[in-house]
Protein backbone atom coordinates (compact mmCIF):
# COMPACT_ATOMS: atom_id res chain seq x y z
CA UNK A 1 0.00 0.00 0.00
CA UNK A 2 3.03 2.24 -0.26
CA UNK A 3 1.82 3.67 -3.56
CA UNK A 4 -1.35 4.95 -1.85
CA UNK A 5 0.64 6.80 0.81
CA UNK A 6 2.84 8.37 -1.85
CA UNK A 7 -0.14 9.30 -3.99
CA UNK A 8 -1.93 10.97 -1.08
CA UNK A 9 1.20 12.79 -0.01
CA UNK A 10 1.66 14.34 -3.46
CA UNK A 11 -2.03 15.00 -3.99
CA UNK A 12 -2.13 17.19 -0.88
CA UNK A 13 -5.22 18.81 0.61
CA UNK A 14 -7.94 16.81 2.29
CA UNK A 15 -8.54 13.15 1.70
CA UNK A 16 -12.14 12.60 0.58
CA UNK A 17 -11.71 8.99 -0.55
CA UNK A 18 -14.16 7.68 2.02
CA UNK A 19 -16.97 10.15 1.39
CA UNK A 20 -18.71 8.06 -1.31
CA UNK A 21 -18.34 4.93 0.77
CA UNK A 22 -19.86 6.65 3.82
CA UNK A 23 -22.81 7.91 1.80
CA UNK A 24 -23.45 4.42 0.43
CA UNK A 25 -23.31 2.95 3.91
CA UNK A 26 -25.74 5.53 5.28
CA UNK A 27 -28.10 4.82 2.38
CA UNK A 28 -27.95 1.14 3.28
CA UNK A 29 -29.07 1.96 6.78
CA UNK A 30 -25.75 1.83 8.61
CA UNK A 31 -26.08 3.86 11.81
CA UNK A 32 -23.14 5.59 13.42
CA UNK A 33 -22.12 3.95 16.68
CA UNK A 34 -22.98 5.91 19.84
CA UNK A 35 -19.93 6.85 21.87
CA UNK A 36 -19.20 7.56 25.53
CA UNK A 37 -18.89 11.28 26.02
CA UNK A 38 -17.56 13.00 29.05
CA UNK A 39 -20.21 15.59 29.86
CA UNK A 40 -17.67 17.54 31.74
CA UNK A 41 -16.47 20.56 33.60
CA UNK A 42 -12.76 21.30 33.28
CA UNK A 43 -10.99 24.52 34.19
CA UNK A 44 -7.49 25.96 34.08
CA UNK A 45 -6.29 28.98 36.05
CA UNK A 46 -2.95 30.75 35.58
CA UNK A 47 -1.28 32.09 38.71
CA UNK A 48 2.02 33.65 39.71
CA UNK A 49 4.55 30.92 39.07
CA UNK A 50 2.43 28.18 37.57
CA UNK A 51 -0.90 26.88 36.46
CA UNK A 52 -3.72 24.99 38.21
CA UNK A 53 -6.05 22.62 36.38
CA UNK A 54 -9.11 20.94 37.77
CA UNK A 55 -11.78 18.58 36.51
CA UNK A 56 -14.88 16.72 37.66
CA UNK A 57 -14.99 12.92 37.47
CA UNK A 58 -18.22 11.93 35.74
CA UNK A 59 -18.30 10.15 32.35
CA UNK A 60 -21.72 9.93 30.68
CA UNK A 61 -23.09 7.71 27.94
CA UNK A 62 -26.19 9.57 26.86
CA UNK A 63 -28.30 10.18 29.95
CA UNK A 64 -26.63 7.60 32.20
CA UNK A 65 -23.42 7.84 34.15
CA UNK A 66 -20.90 5.45 32.68
CA UNK A 67 -18.06 6.09 35.12
CA UNK A 68 -18.54 7.69 38.53
CA UNK A 69 -14.87 8.37 39.10
CA UNK A 70 -12.96 8.68 35.86
CA UNK A 71 -9.68 10.59 35.47
CA UNK A 72 -9.90 13.59 33.20
CA UNK A 73 -6.49 15.06 34.01
CA UNK A 74 -3.91 13.45 31.71
CA UNK A 75 -0.13 13.70 31.84
CA UNK A 76 1.46 14.76 28.59
CA UNK A 77 4.88 15.50 30.07
CA UNK A 78 6.19 15.90 33.62
CA UNK A 79 5.67 19.64 33.23
CA UNK A 80 2.57 19.63 30.98
CA UNK A 81 -0.87 18.28 31.82
CA UNK A 82 -4.06 18.16 29.79
CA UNK A 83 -7.63 18.29 31.03
CA UNK A 84 -9.99 16.73 28.50
CA UNK A 85 -13.65 17.09 27.58
CA UNK A 86 -15.40 15.29 24.75
CA UNK A 87 -15.31 11.68 23.63
CA UNK A 88 -13.65 9.57 26.34
CA UNK A 89 -11.97 7.14 23.93
CA UNK A 90 -10.54 9.91 21.77
CA UNK A 91 -9.21 11.74 24.81
CA UNK A 92 -7.57 8.71 26.33
CA UNK A 93 -5.89 7.57 23.13
CA UNK A 94 -4.84 10.98 21.88
CA UNK A 95 -3.33 11.94 25.24
CA UNK A 96 -1.50 8.60 25.49
CA UNK A 97 -0.26 9.04 21.91
CA UNK A 98 1.09 12.54 22.56
CA UNK A 99 2.58 11.48 25.88
CA UNK A 100 4.58 8.82 24.04
CA UNK A 101 5.49 11.17 21.20
CA UNK A 102 6.75 13.82 23.59
CA UNK A 103 8.70 11.28 25.61
CA UNK A 104 10.46 10.02 22.49
CA UNK A 105 11.31 13.57 21.55
CA UNK A 106 12.67 14.25 25.04
CA UNK A 107 14.83 11.12 24.84
CA UNK A 108 16.15 12.18 21.45
CA UNK A 109 16.80 15.83 22.19
CA UNK A 110 17.42 15.72 25.94
CA UNK A 111 15.25 18.83 26.35
CA UNK A 112 12.15 19.61 28.41
CA UNK A 113 8.89 19.51 26.42
CA UNK A 114 7.26 22.85 25.76
CA UNK A 115 3.59 23.84 25.82
CA UNK A 116 3.67 25.46 22.38
CA UNK A 117 5.08 22.20 20.94
CA UNK A 118 2.09 20.34 22.34
CA UNK A 119 -0.33 22.88 20.90
CA UNK A 120 1.28 22.75 17.47
CA UNK A 121 1.33 18.95 17.36
CA UNK A 122 -2.23 18.67 18.63
CA UNK A 123 -3.75 21.19 16.28
CA UNK A 124 -1.87 19.73 13.30
CA UNK A 125 -3.40 16.36 14.13
CA UNK A 126 -6.93 17.62 14.83
CA UNK A 127 -7.44 20.07 11.97
CA UNK A 128 -7.37 17.56 9.08
CA UNK A 129 -10.00 15.44 10.87
CA UNK A 130 -12.51 18.31 10.73
CA UNK A 131 -13.66 17.92 14.31
CA UNK A 132 -14.41 14.20 14.11
CA UNK A 133 -11.78 13.51 16.77
CA UNK A 134 -13.90 14.76 19.64
CA UNK A 135 -11.28 16.17 21.99
CA UNK A 136 -11.65 19.55 23.65
CA UNK A 137 -8.56 20.04 25.78
CA UNK A 138 -7.17 22.53 28.22
CA UNK A 139 -3.38 22.29 28.11
CA UNK A 140 -1.46 23.74 31.04
CA UNK A 141 2.22 23.61 31.76
CA UNK A 142 5.36 25.41 32.74
CA UNK A 143 8.49 25.50 30.61
CA UNK A 144 11.37 27.79 29.74
CA UNK A 145 8.87 30.41 28.51
CA UNK A 146 7.02 30.53 31.81
CA UNK A 147 3.65 29.15 32.84
CA UNK A 148 1.18 28.84 29.99
CA UNK A 149 -2.47 27.86 29.68
CA UNK A 150 -4.20 27.17 26.39
CA UNK A 151 -7.35 25.47 25.20
CA UNK A 152 -7.72 23.44 22.03
CA UNK A 153 -11.07 22.84 20.37
CA UNK A 154 -11.93 19.63 18.43
CA UNK A 155 -11.57 21.50 15.14
CA UNK A 156 -8.00 22.51 15.85
CA UNK A 157 -8.51 26.04 17.11
CA UNK A 158 -6.37 27.14 20.05
CA UNK A 159 -6.44 30.15 22.34
CA UNK A 160 -4.20 31.29 25.20
CA UNK A 161 -6.16 32.77 28.11
CA UNK A 162 -5.28 33.20 31.80
CA UNK A 163 -8.41 31.23 32.73
CA UNK A 164 -10.29 28.64 30.66
CA UNK A 165 -13.16 26.27 31.05
CA UNK A 166 -14.48 23.62 28.70
CA UNK A 167 -17.13 20.93 28.59
CA UNK A 168 -20.88 20.99 29.17
CA UNK A 169 -20.38 22.64 32.55
CA UNK A 170 -18.08 25.30 31.14
CA UNK A 171 -20.71 28.05 31.33
CA UNK A 172 -21.37 27.45 35.00
CA UNK A 173 -17.63 27.33 35.75
CA UNK A 174 -16.98 30.39 33.60
CA UNK A 175 -19.48 32.36 35.68
CA UNK A 176 -17.39 31.75 38.78
CA UNK A 177 -14.10 32.34 36.96
CA UNK A 178 -15.22 35.62 35.40
CA UNK A 179 -16.52 36.87 38.73
CA UNK A 180 -13.48 35.95 40.81
CA UNK A 181 -10.36 35.78 38.65
CA UNK A 182 -7.65 38.37 39.30
CA UNK A 183 -4.07 38.87 38.20
CA UNK A 184 -1.41 37.82 40.68
CA UNK A 185 -3.17 34.95 42.42
CA UNK A 186 -1.18 32.75 44.76
CA UNK A 187 -1.09 28.98 44.27
CA UNK A 188 -3.60 28.30 47.04
CA UNK A 189 -5.97 31.03 45.79
CA UNK A 190 -5.82 29.59 42.29
CA UNK A 191 -6.54 26.08 43.60
CA UNK A 192 -9.52 27.36 45.62
CA UNK A 193 -10.85 29.25 42.60
CA UNK A 194 -10.48 26.20 40.35
CA UNK A 195 -12.26 23.97 42.87
CA UNK A 196 -15.09 26.49 43.24
CA UNK A 197 -15.46 26.64 39.46
CA UNK A 198 -15.65 22.84 39.20
CA UNK A 199 -18.17 22.76 42.04
CA UNK A 200 -20.33 25.15 40.04
CA UNK A 201 -20.23 22.69 37.15
CA UNK A 202 -20.90 19.67 39.39
CA UNK A 203 -23.96 21.21 41.03
CA UNK A 204 -25.42 23.18 38.15
CA UNK A 205 -24.69 20.98 35.13
CA UNK A 206 -26.25 17.58 34.67
CA UNK A 207 -23.37 16.26 32.62
CA UNK A 208 -20.85 16.85 35.41
CA UNK A 209 -20.72 15.37 38.86
CA UNK A 210 -19.00 13.22 41.47
CA UNK A 211 -15.61 14.41 42.68
CA UNK A 212 -13.04 17.12 41.94
CA UNK A 213 -9.47 16.36 40.78
CA UNK A 214 -6.84 19.08 40.89
CA UNK A 215 -3.27 19.40 39.64
CA UNK A 216 -1.01 22.37 40.37
CA UNK A 217 2.01 22.65 38.06
CA UNK A 218 4.96 24.74 39.15
CA UNK A 219 8.70 24.76 38.52
CA UNK A 220 9.04 22.19 41.31
CA UNK A 221 6.77 19.73 39.53
CA UNK A 222 3.15 18.69 39.32
CA UNK A 223 1.15 18.31 42.51
CA UNK A 224 -1.77 16.00 41.62
CA UNK A 225 -4.59 15.62 44.12
CA UNK A 226 -7.01 12.92 43.02
CA UNK A 227 -10.50 13.37 44.49
CA UNK A 228 -9.54 16.41 46.54
CA UNK A 229 -13.27 17.01 47.08
CA UNK A 230 -15.95 14.39 47.30
CA UNK A 231 -19.62 15.25 47.66
CA UNK A 232 -21.33 11.89 47.21
CA UNK A 233 -19.26 9.59 49.37
CA UNK A 234 -21.06 6.54 50.71
CA UNK A 235 -21.96 7.11 54.31
CA UNK A 236 -21.47 3.45 55.23
CA UNK A 237 -19.07 0.93 53.79
CA UNK A 238 -19.40 -2.78 54.55
CA UNK A 239 -16.24 -4.34 56.00
CA UNK A 240 -14.81 -6.99 53.69
CA UNK A 241 -13.58 -9.31 55.21
CA UNK A 242 -15.69 -8.80 58.34
CA UNK A 243 -13.63 -8.69 61.52
CA UNK A 244 -15.40 -10.16 64.50
CA UNK A 245 -14.81 -8.22 67.69
CA UNK A 246 -12.40 -10.01 70.02
CA UNK A 247 -13.71 -11.62 73.23
CA UNK A 248 -17.26 -10.69 72.38
CA UNK A 249 -18.80 -14.07 73.07
CA UNK A 250 -17.90 -15.95 76.27
CA UNK A 251 -17.02 -19.57 75.69
CA UNK A 252 -18.83 -22.10 77.93
CA UNK A 253 -17.31 -25.37 76.78
CA UNK A 254 -14.31 -26.48 74.77
CA UNK A 255 -14.26 -29.51 72.51
CA UNK A 256 -11.34 -31.25 70.89
CA UNK A 257 -11.43 -33.36 67.71
CA UNK A 258 -8.74 -35.93 67.20
CA UNK A 259 -8.33 -36.45 63.45
CA UNK A 260 -6.53 -39.79 63.62
CA UNK A 261 -8.90 -41.37 66.12
CA UNK A 262 -11.92 -39.50 64.64
CA UNK A 263 -13.12 -38.68 68.18
CA UNK A 264 -14.73 -35.60 69.72
CA UNK A 265 -13.93 -35.09 73.41
CA UNK A 266 -14.79 -32.32 75.82
CA UNK A 267 -12.01 -30.35 77.42
CA UNK A 268 -12.50 -28.95 80.92
CA UNK A 269 -10.81 -25.52 80.60
CA UNK A 270 -12.30 -22.25 79.46
CA UNK A 271 -11.52 -21.62 75.83
CA UNK A 272 -9.13 -18.94 74.83
CA UNK A 273 -10.34 -17.18 71.76
CA UNK A 274 -7.64 -16.94 69.14
CA UNK A 275 -7.97 -14.33 66.43
Amino acid at each position, binding site marked *: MQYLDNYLQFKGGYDYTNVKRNELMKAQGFKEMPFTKTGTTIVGVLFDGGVVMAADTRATAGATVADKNCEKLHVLAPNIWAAGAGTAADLHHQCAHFNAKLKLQRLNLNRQSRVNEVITKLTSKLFPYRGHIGVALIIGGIDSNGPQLASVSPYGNYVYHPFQSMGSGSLAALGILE*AKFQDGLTKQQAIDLAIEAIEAGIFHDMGSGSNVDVVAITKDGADYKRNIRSYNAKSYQKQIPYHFPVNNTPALKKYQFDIEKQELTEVGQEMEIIE
Partner: protein
Amino acid sequence: MIFNSELSGQQQHTTSPVVTGGSVIALVYKGGVVIGTDTLCSYGSMAAFKNVEKIAQVSKNTLYVSSGEFSDFQQVVKELAKIDRSALQYDDGVHPSPRDYGNFLARLSYKKRCKINPLYLQNVIAGFHNGERYLALVDIYGTYLESNFVTTGFASYFCKAIISNYWNENCTLDQAKQVIRECFKVLFCRDCRAHDMIQLGYVDEQGVHIEQAERVETKWDFNGFKTRANEKLHTQ
Protein backbone atom coordinates in the same frame (compact mmCIF):
# COMPACT_ATOMS: atom_id res chain seq x y z
CA MET B 1 -68.34 41.95 10.89
CA ILE B 2 -65.82 39.70 12.46
CA PHE B 3 -62.68 41.50 13.61
CA ASN B 4 -61.25 38.54 15.46
CA SER B 5 -58.13 37.64 13.50
CA GLU B 6 -58.34 34.02 14.62
CA LEU B 7 -61.37 33.52 12.38
CA SER B 8 -60.00 35.34 9.37
CA GLY B 9 -57.98 32.40 8.09
CA GLN B 10 -54.85 34.51 7.83
CA GLN B 11 -53.62 33.73 11.32
CA GLN B 12 -49.96 34.47 11.97
CA HIS B 13 -48.13 32.35 14.51
CA THR B 14 -45.13 33.60 16.42
CA THR B 15 -42.33 31.41 15.10
CA SER B 16 -39.31 33.39 16.21
CA PRO B 17 -38.75 36.60 18.10
CA VAL B 18 -37.59 39.75 16.34
CA VAL B 19 -36.76 42.35 18.98
CA THR B 20 -35.56 40.62 22.13
CA GLY B 21 -34.74 41.61 25.68
CA GLY B 22 -31.87 40.03 27.59
CA SER B 23 -31.48 38.02 30.78
CA VAL B 24 -33.42 38.78 33.95
CA ILE B 25 -32.21 37.95 37.44
CA ALA B 26 -34.53 38.21 40.45
CA LEU B 27 -33.63 37.45 44.06
CA VAL B 28 -35.62 37.40 47.26
CA TYR B 29 -34.02 39.25 50.19
CA LYS B 30 -34.96 39.77 53.82
CA GLY B 31 -37.48 42.53 53.28
CA GLY B 32 -38.69 41.97 49.74
CA VAL B 33 -37.70 41.01 46.21
CA VAL B 34 -35.16 42.65 43.90
CA ILE B 35 -35.04 42.31 40.10
CA GLY B 36 -32.23 43.22 37.76
CA THR B 37 -32.28 43.44 34.00
CA ASP B 38 -30.19 45.12 31.36
CA THR B 39 -31.44 48.04 29.29
CA LEU B 40 -30.86 46.56 25.86
CA CYS B 41 -33.30 45.39 23.20
CA SER B 42 -31.55 43.46 20.45
CA TYR B 43 -32.68 43.24 16.85
CA GLY B 44 -31.14 39.84 16.14
CA SER B 45 -27.45 40.39 16.67
CA MET B 46 -27.70 44.18 16.50
CA ALA B 47 -27.86 46.22 19.70
CA ALA B 48 -30.75 48.29 18.43
CA PHE B 49 -32.24 49.99 21.49
CA LYS B 50 -29.76 50.60 24.26
CA ASN B 51 -31.75 52.57 26.79
CA VAL B 52 -34.96 50.64 27.33
CA GLU B 53 -36.80 50.55 30.64
CA LYS B 54 -37.83 46.96 31.04
CA ILE B 55 -39.03 46.86 34.63
CA ALA B 56 -42.77 47.43 34.67
CA GLN B 57 -44.86 48.25 37.70
CA VAL B 58 -48.24 46.62 37.17
CA SER B 59 -49.74 47.44 40.53
CA LYS B 60 -48.92 49.10 43.84
CA ASN B 61 -46.91 46.07 45.01
CA THR B 62 -46.07 44.06 41.91
CA LEU B 63 -43.22 44.22 39.41
CA TYR B 64 -43.22 42.49 36.06
CA VAL B 65 -40.18 41.87 33.84
CA SER B 66 -39.61 39.45 31.01
CA SER B 67 -37.00 38.37 28.53
CA GLY B 68 -37.85 37.48 24.96
CA GLU B 69 -39.93 39.23 22.32
CA PHE B 70 -40.28 42.84 23.45
CA SER B 71 -43.56 43.56 21.74
CA ASP B 72 -45.12 40.66 23.65
CA PHE B 73 -43.73 42.18 26.85
CA GLN B 74 -45.36 45.52 26.09
CA GLN B 75 -48.67 43.81 25.35
CA VAL B 76 -48.61 41.79 28.57
CA VAL B 77 -47.84 44.93 30.59
CA LYS B 78 -50.98 46.47 29.13
CA GLU B 79 -53.04 43.36 29.98
CA LEU B 80 -51.79 43.21 33.56
CA ALA B 81 -52.31 46.93 34.11
CA LYS B 82 -55.85 46.51 32.76
CA ILE B 83 -56.59 44.01 35.54
CA ASP B 84 -55.46 46.43 38.19
CA ARG B 85 -57.49 49.30 36.66
CA SER B 86 -60.64 47.23 36.41
CA ALA B 87 -60.32 46.34 40.10
CA LEU B 88 -60.55 50.08 40.82
CA GLN B 89 -64.06 50.14 39.37
CA TYR B 90 -65.37 48.10 42.28
CA ASP B 91 -64.02 50.78 44.62
CA ASP B 92 -63.76 48.40 47.56
CA GLY B 93 -60.05 48.70 48.19
CA VAL B 94 -59.45 45.09 47.12
CA HIS B 95 -56.67 44.64 44.62
CA PRO B 96 -55.25 41.53 42.98
CA SER B 97 -52.26 40.17 44.86
CA PRO B 98 -48.97 39.45 43.08
CA ARG B 99 -49.88 35.76 43.02
CA ASP B 100 -53.07 36.61 41.12
CA TYR B 101 -50.98 38.23 38.39
CA GLY B 102 -48.69 35.23 38.31
CA ASN B 103 -51.60 32.83 37.92
CA PHE B 104 -53.23 34.99 35.26
CA LEU B 105 -50.03 35.09 33.26
CA ALA B 106 -49.58 31.33 33.57
CA ARG B 107 -53.09 30.69 32.28
CA LEU B 108 -52.69 33.21 29.45
CA SER B 109 -49.34 31.74 28.38
CA TYR B 110 -50.70 28.19 28.47
CA LYS B 111 -53.76 29.13 26.43
CA LYS B 112 -51.59 30.76 23.78
CA ARG B 113 -49.21 27.80 23.76
CA CYS B 114 -52.10 25.40 23.19
CA LYS B 115 -53.06 27.41 20.13
CA ILE B 116 -49.43 27.08 18.93
CA ASN B 117 -49.16 30.85 19.04
CA PRO B 118 -47.17 31.57 22.16
CA LEU B 119 -46.22 34.74 23.91
CA TYR B 120 -42.51 34.48 23.22
CA LEU B 121 -41.52 35.35 26.77
CA GLN B 122 -39.94 34.11 29.96
CA ASN B 123 -41.92 36.12 32.51
CA VAL B 124 -40.86 37.11 36.01
CA ILE B 125 -43.36 38.47 38.51
CA ALA B 126 -42.24 39.84 41.85
CA GLY B 127 -44.29 41.29 44.65
CA PHE B 128 -44.78 41.88 48.34
CA HIS B 129 -48.22 41.22 49.79
CA ASN B 130 -49.42 40.85 53.40
CA GLY B 131 -45.87 40.64 54.70
CA GLU B 132 -44.96 37.85 52.29
CA ARG B 133 -42.44 38.02 49.47
CA TYR B 134 -43.55 36.63 46.13
CA LEU B 135 -41.42 35.66 43.15
CA ALA B 136 -42.47 33.49 40.22
CA LEU B 137 -41.31 32.49 36.78
CA VAL B 138 -43.81 31.80 33.99
CA ASP B 139 -42.17 30.46 30.89
CA ILE B 140 -43.13 30.40 27.23
CA TYR B 141 -45.28 27.26 27.67
CA GLY B 142 -47.15 28.49 30.71
CA THR B 143 -45.10 26.57 33.28
CA TYR B 144 -45.56 28.31 36.62
CA LEU B 145 -42.71 28.11 39.17
CA GLU B 146 -42.64 29.99 42.46
CA SER B 147 -39.15 30.24 43.88
CA ASN B 148 -36.66 32.28 45.89
CA PHE B 149 -34.54 33.18 42.93
CA VAL B 150 -35.21 33.29 39.23
CA THR B 151 -32.92 33.58 36.21
CA THR B 152 -33.84 33.69 32.54
CA GLY B 153 -31.82 33.42 29.37
CA PHE B 154 -28.07 33.08 29.61
CA ALA B 155 -28.14 34.00 33.29
CA SER B 156 -29.44 30.47 33.92
CA TYR B 157 -26.16 29.08 32.65
CA PHE B 158 -23.61 31.57 33.93
CA CYS B 159 -25.11 32.95 37.11
CA LYS B 160 -26.78 30.10 39.03
CA ALA B 161 -23.45 29.17 40.62
CA ILE B 162 -22.70 32.74 41.68
CA ILE B 163 -26.18 33.11 43.15
CA SER B 164 -26.08 29.84 45.08
CA ASN B 165 -22.61 30.59 46.50
CA TYR B 166 -23.04 34.25 47.45
CA TRP B 167 -26.73 34.79 48.16
CA ASN B 168 -29.22 33.49 50.66
CA GLU B 169 -32.89 34.33 51.04
CA ASN B 170 -32.32 36.36 54.21
CA CYS B 171 -29.57 38.65 53.01
CA THR B 172 -29.87 42.43 52.98
CA LEU B 173 -31.03 44.47 49.99
CA ASP B 174 -27.51 45.72 49.32
CA GLN B 175 -26.06 42.22 49.38
CA ALA B 176 -28.69 41.00 46.93
CA LYS B 177 -28.09 43.98 44.64
CA GLN B 178 -24.35 43.33 44.74
CA VAL B 179 -24.88 39.70 43.69
CA ILE B 180 -27.05 40.86 40.77
CA ARG B 181 -24.42 43.40 39.69
CA GLU B 182 -21.76 40.69 39.81
CA CYS B 183 -23.93 38.43 37.66
CA PHE B 184 -24.46 41.11 35.02
CA LYS B 185 -20.74 41.76 35.00
CA VAL B 186 -20.17 38.14 34.07
CA LEU B 187 -22.97 38.25 31.49
CA PHE B 188 -21.57 41.31 29.79
CA CYS B 189 -18.22 39.52 29.51
CA ARG B 190 -19.56 36.33 28.01
CA ASP B 191 -23.06 36.82 26.55
CA CYS B 192 -23.00 38.36 23.09
CA ARG B 193 -26.46 39.89 23.50
CA ALA B 194 -25.81 41.52 26.88
CA HIS B 195 -25.21 45.16 27.76
CA ASP B 196 -23.30 46.84 30.54
CA MET B 197 -26.12 49.22 31.51
CA ILE B 198 -28.46 47.54 33.96
CA GLN B 199 -31.50 48.58 35.91
CA LEU B 200 -32.50 47.36 39.34
CA GLY B 201 -35.95 47.47 40.88
CA TYR B 202 -37.19 46.19 44.20
CA VAL B 203 -40.50 45.79 45.96
CA ASP B 204 -40.88 45.75 49.71
CA GLU B 205 -43.40 46.69 52.40
CA GLN B 206 -43.38 50.31 51.29
CA GLY B 207 -44.11 49.43 47.67
CA VAL B 208 -42.29 49.46 44.39
CA HIS B 209 -38.95 51.23 43.84
CA ILE B 210 -37.40 51.32 40.37
CA GLU B 211 -33.89 52.73 40.27
CA GLN B 212 -31.97 54.65 37.64
CA ALA B 213 -30.00 52.66 35.09
CA GLU B 214 -26.40 52.08 36.14
CA ARG B 215 -23.27 50.83 34.40
CA VAL B 216 -21.52 47.65 35.54
CA GLU B 217 -17.75 47.82 35.65
CA THR B 218 -15.97 45.04 33.80
CA LYS B 219 -12.26 44.39 33.49
CA TRP B 220 -10.97 43.37 30.06
CA ASP B 221 -7.26 44.01 30.47
CA PHE B 222 -5.95 41.09 32.47
CA ASN B 223 -2.24 40.47 31.99
CA GLY B 224 -2.95 37.13 30.37
CA PHE B 225 -5.15 38.80 27.74
CA LYS B 226 -2.70 41.58 26.90
CA THR B 227 0.40 39.45 26.55
CA ARG B 228 -0.44 36.04 25.14
CA ALA B 229 2.22 33.43 25.60
CA ASN B 230 2.14 32.33 21.96
CA GLU B 231 2.25 35.89 20.55
CA LYS B 232 5.27 36.63 22.66
CA LEU B 233 7.01 33.64 21.15
CA HIS B 234 6.20 34.58 17.57
CA THR B 235 7.62 38.07 17.83
CA GLN B 236 10.94 36.99 19.32
